[in-house]
């Protein structure tokens, strides 16, 4: 697939390289240095950096502002946009704002329910859902039109992404759901973090059977465990997460002072295995508040140096 | 056997017939206490009447607490019809309790206002 946008991420994927992305959470405040420092930590090890959008409904600096900060530093941001907090006017508006800074990647999400965060009494918007947002962004790019039909002056050139969760229920429609996203105009997906590699491979088999891997770039999501406690927490308390008992046991059987390293090791081993899975186009390494480990993971997994994008 | 003379008996075919309103109206009219006496749980002749009655007593207690009458003035006891001594015991218990709590505050409020 030849690239349709100036996105560096799209270019690397279209050239057939395994792409690497990671993510940063903006600060719970207005300090720009926070984001710049995180970006600098990982910039040579990833092709693009996602900026989360009020993740788990905890109010933070907006993704757009943080993306602009990164762009001004010469980095490649991915604007995450949830439909929870904005109506269609605001979303189109923010996309134009991002485009005005030549930000070329957007990840379309619904967003965690606000009851998880610090504003449980607030409204949620969901004027559009994540698939409709992707459709809208695609139309803004390909037709140069607002959702209302008017022409956009200097249309945005967004490479359009979405999340995919092979582990949420019901499993039987998870491949169909990816097909739906492709039909909506999604061009790349980053999956929920993978611990159950068997189940992921099962999903990928279904995906490949339908030829979806040729229509959408699939980046396998990974999050290294910091501790056995974190493994248990993610297994039991995070919706849509599948952590096999064997993995928790492996963490638990490791002495406490070595657990962090074991978590990194599991992550690296997963990448090695996933490299061999047909249809996997890259990796999305989510090491929230542990960004300093991304370089080690990328290097040890044989993904360093990153290809230069012209 | 004798039960305290201050008790007025109202007979119903099943305590399931007792409505929340019956209990509340009694207090409106100045009763110091209301006691619902039903069959042992699981032995209701009409299946679950005594279970429903208990829930209504609880509801009445809540209302009575809210309006300052005192929810403990309404009580429910369970016994079988052959347990006359048990009936006397409950009757004495509730009479003692109500005596301790004093008269229905509505009566006092009336006389204070007069």
């Amino acid at each position, binding site marked *: 697939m030849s690239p349709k946008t100036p996105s560096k991420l799209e270019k690397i994927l279209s050239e057939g390289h395994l792409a690497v992305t990671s993510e940063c959470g903006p600060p719970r405040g207005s300090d720009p240095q926070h984001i710049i420092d995180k970006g600098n930590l990982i910039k040579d090890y990833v092709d693009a950096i996602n900026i989360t959008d009020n993740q788990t409904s905890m109010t933070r600096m907006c993704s757009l502002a943080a993306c602009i900060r990164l762009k001004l530093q010469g980095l490649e941001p991915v604007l995450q946009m949830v*439909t*929870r907090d904005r109506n*269609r006017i605001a979303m189109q508006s923010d996309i134009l704002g991002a485009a005005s800074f030549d930000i070329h990647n957007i990840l379309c999400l*619904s*967003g*965690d*329910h606000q*009851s*998880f965060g610090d504003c449980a009494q607030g409204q*949620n918007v*969901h*004027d*559009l*859902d*994540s*698939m*409709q947002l992707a*459709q*809208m962004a695609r139309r803004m790019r390909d037709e140069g039109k607002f*959702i209302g039909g008017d022409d956009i002056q200097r249309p945005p050139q967004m490479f359009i992404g979405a*999340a995919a*969760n092979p582990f*949420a*229920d*019901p499993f*039987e*429609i998870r491949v*169909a759901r990816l*097909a*739906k996203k492709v*039909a*909506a105009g999604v061009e790349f997906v980053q999956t*929920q973090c993978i611990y159950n590699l068997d189940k992921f491979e099962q999903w990928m088999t279904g995906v490949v059977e339908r030829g979806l891997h040729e229509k959408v770039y699939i980046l396998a999501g990974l999050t290294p465990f910091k501790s056995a406690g974190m493994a248990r927490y993610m297994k039991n308390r995070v*919706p*849509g997460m599948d952590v096999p008992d064997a993995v928790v046991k492996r963490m638990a059987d490791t002495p406490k002072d070595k657990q962090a390293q074991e978590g990194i090791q599991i992550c690296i081993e997963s990448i090695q295995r996933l490299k061999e899975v047909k249809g996997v186009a890259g990796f999305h390494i989510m090491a929230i508040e542990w960004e300093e480990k991304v370089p080690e993971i990328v290097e040890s997994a044989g993904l360093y140096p990153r290809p230069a994008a012209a | 056997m004798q039960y305290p003379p201050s008790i007025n008996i109202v007979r119903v075919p099943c305590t399931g017939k007792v*409505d*929340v*309103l019956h209990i*509340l*109206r009694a*207090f*409106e009219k100045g009763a110091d206490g209301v006691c619902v006496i039903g069959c042992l749980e699981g032995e209701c002749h009409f299946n679950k009447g005594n279970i429903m009655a208990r829930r209504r007593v609880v*509801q009445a207690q809540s*209302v*009575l607490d*809210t*309006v*300052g*009458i005192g929810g403990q003035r309404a009580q429910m006891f369970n016994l079988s019809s052959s347990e006359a001594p048990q009936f006397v015991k409950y009757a004495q218990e509730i009479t003692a309790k109500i005596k301790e709590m004093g008269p229905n*505050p*509505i009566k006092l*409020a*009336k006389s*204070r*206002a007069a």
Partner: protein
Amino acid sequence: MIVAEKKPIEEIIECLKDRKSVLVLGCNECVTVCEAGGKKEVGVLASALRMHSLNQGQEVRIDEVTLERQCDHEYLEEIRDVIDQYDAVVSLACGVGVQFMAETYGQTEILPGVNTCFMGATEKRGLWTERCQGCGQCVLAVTGGICPVARCAKRLFNGPCGGSTSGKCEISKEVDCAWQLIVDRLKALGRLDEFENLFPIKDWSTDRAGGPRKVVREDVQQ
């Protein structure tokens, strides 16, 4: 039906401070079915208000009337002759009835006695759950009879989201994932292939967002 819940008695007592003559007005329809504002509930509330006032050494007149419903002028007329006797009316009807009463009897204080919650149904006695949000453009034919607007916490049209776990919504284990229900229903109806059809972007102008709504039928107007 419209499902409502009794307001705490304390709240109503507070609203009625200094009133000497109160009418507790029930409604025989929705609020009777969800046991919040029918004749029975009127009786309990009135009794509680009487006891409260007696306990303060005051003599407040508390009357009880239950109308067939409070959302039609004809029924509200039934109390026209007596309404002026009251300082306040506590209406146990849903928010619609309270407002209609206030519009009809603008000189009398009409206070709500219930919290109106949603449009829903009786799953079993004592359990009422939401089913409809009145979006004005019903899509139930497409979703096999399950509403994504009312039953999905994020009102997704192309769900489920990634938080659906074992058929339950991410917000609570007690809430069904609407999209799991829709998938199951489509499967049972032999229509699971429709799942891949993209739902077009919703027109919310007929929803609350478009402003207060009305339905007009000129063919039946007099």
